[in-house]
């Protein structure tokens, strides 16, 4: 898949970033009226909405668990989010990302309070540009907090990767397409464990360790942005309520 691309110019990456630098991230909280919790994230060229519904009775019934709520995550990409129109409706890729998103978020939630219920996370990608699953998980975690779902901690996510034999943070489109490895991660910051970990490409053991460390650093930066977004929302609301 590699192409003859110059990934580094004067130590800077294709889009001018340093190796350990994130793309710009902006998170808004409570952007949708109908949903119980919601958020909007712009991350590099990605634009993603997230809506959370629940806890409400799980449906269809056979999905209900007697000892806790279930978490359903739906990841959808709008047909117009990419340059070549995507066929509307669920894709195999979307199904898999929904599944790993659920796996990334669930360890941080306290679902035991709501037996037979479900919490639904809807992630809608309006514009896509590498790293949508990490951006979606990041936004979803904030929307879950906005919906008041009890949680142990927020879940920030961020990819590390390898391009031109170097470990870098938060791959951009060209790095994702033509790089050597992509390692999307989600972090449980307090527990210090990874709840999302996928990798495709080619890494040595040492490179993996370096990438996990760099990815963790990126996740912690994303974590700060998540907290700021929530703080801003609630301070603003407090001010308005006074």
């Amino acid at each position, binding site marked *: 898949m590699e192409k003859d691309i110059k990934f580094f110019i004067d130590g800077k990456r294709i889009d001018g970033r340093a190796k350990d630098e994130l793309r710009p991230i902006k998170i808004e909280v409570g952007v949708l009226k*109908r949903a119980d919790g919601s958020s909007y994230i712009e991350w590099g060229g990605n634009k993603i909405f997230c*809506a959370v519904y629940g806890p409400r009775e799980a449906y269809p019934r056979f999905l209900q668990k007697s000892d806790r709520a279930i978490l359903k995550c*739906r990841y*959808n990409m709008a047909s*117009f989010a990419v340059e070549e129109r995507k066929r509307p409706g669920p894709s195999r890729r979307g199904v898999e990302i929904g599944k790993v998103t659920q796996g990334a978020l669930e360890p941080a939630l306290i679902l035991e309070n709501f037996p037979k219920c479900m919490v639904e996370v809807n992630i809608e990608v*309006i514009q896509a*540009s590498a790293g949508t699953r990490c951006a979606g998980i990041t936004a979803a975690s904030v929307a879950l907090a906005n919906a008041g779902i009890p949680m142990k901690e927020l879940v920030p996510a961020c990819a590390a990767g390898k391009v031109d034999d170097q470990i870098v943070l938060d791959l951009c489109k060209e790095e994702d397409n033509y790089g050597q490895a992509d390692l999307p991660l989600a972090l449980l910051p307090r527990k210090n464990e990874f709840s999302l970990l996928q990798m495709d490409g080619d890494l040595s053991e040492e490179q993996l360790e370096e990438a996990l460390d760099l990815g963790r650093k990126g996740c912690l930066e994303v974590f700060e942005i998540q907290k700021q977004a929530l703080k801003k929302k609630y301070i603003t609301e407090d001010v308005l309520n006074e």
Partner: protein
Amino acid sequence: MSSVLSDIKKDYIISLLKTGKREDGRGFDDTRNIKIELGIASKANGSCFVQIGDTKVIAGVQCEMGEPFPDTPNQGVFTTNAELIPMASPDFEAGPPREDAIELARIVDRGIRESGAVDFQKLVIKEGELVRVLFVDLHIMDYNGNLFDACGIAAIAALHSTKMPALDEEGNKIEGEFVSLPMKKIPIPCTYVKIADSILYDPSIEEEAVMDSRITVTTEDSGKISAMQKGDVGSFKKEEILDIVRRSKIKGDEIRSLLNEKFSEMR
């Protein structure tokens, strides 16, 4: 497209209407706040975010190339799709498009197609062989009433803002050059509901939940009516229909002005 609202709420809304007031303080012909943002999805050839009150929709336009339909060899292909995604309402479900989404897509599609808003003949590259294929995809993000108008406005605005790759005579893309769609008109749908003999423009979700009937009238710049669609319950008198048509022209012109402003900002 209905929610459960207690009979008490219905009685309350009706009693307010008898005194000439709507629950949210609007006059019978007032629109909720409208926000229109062109180009929200930059990977698409054209896109538009429309917010009416708390209803939020996005329309994306994408252009491909393909064969024309055998019965219209001298026209481009035009397809409209709507997704009532679970994000927008606790009542929407994932899965294949339901009746409501199909109806919505077909009404928006006809409102544009039948009005002649797009000059489909100018989308032909080689007659009978190669034409532009236009997709309009509607994503409902937040459903709080009056989806038809929000989607109709988003679709026509996205089309007016669309930039297609320019083509040379053989139909090959000219790198970096873009052309606008051959747009001719700005048809605007205006939706009214009847509740206990009061006729209200731009219904809120609460008003839709208690309405007796609903109708959408699409008018053009010239004041011509290009489409009408009674909704899925109730009925209308002839006089009511003619009254709604007259009011639609005024509201249609207001929204057209708003769009024209946006279009000129864009240039």
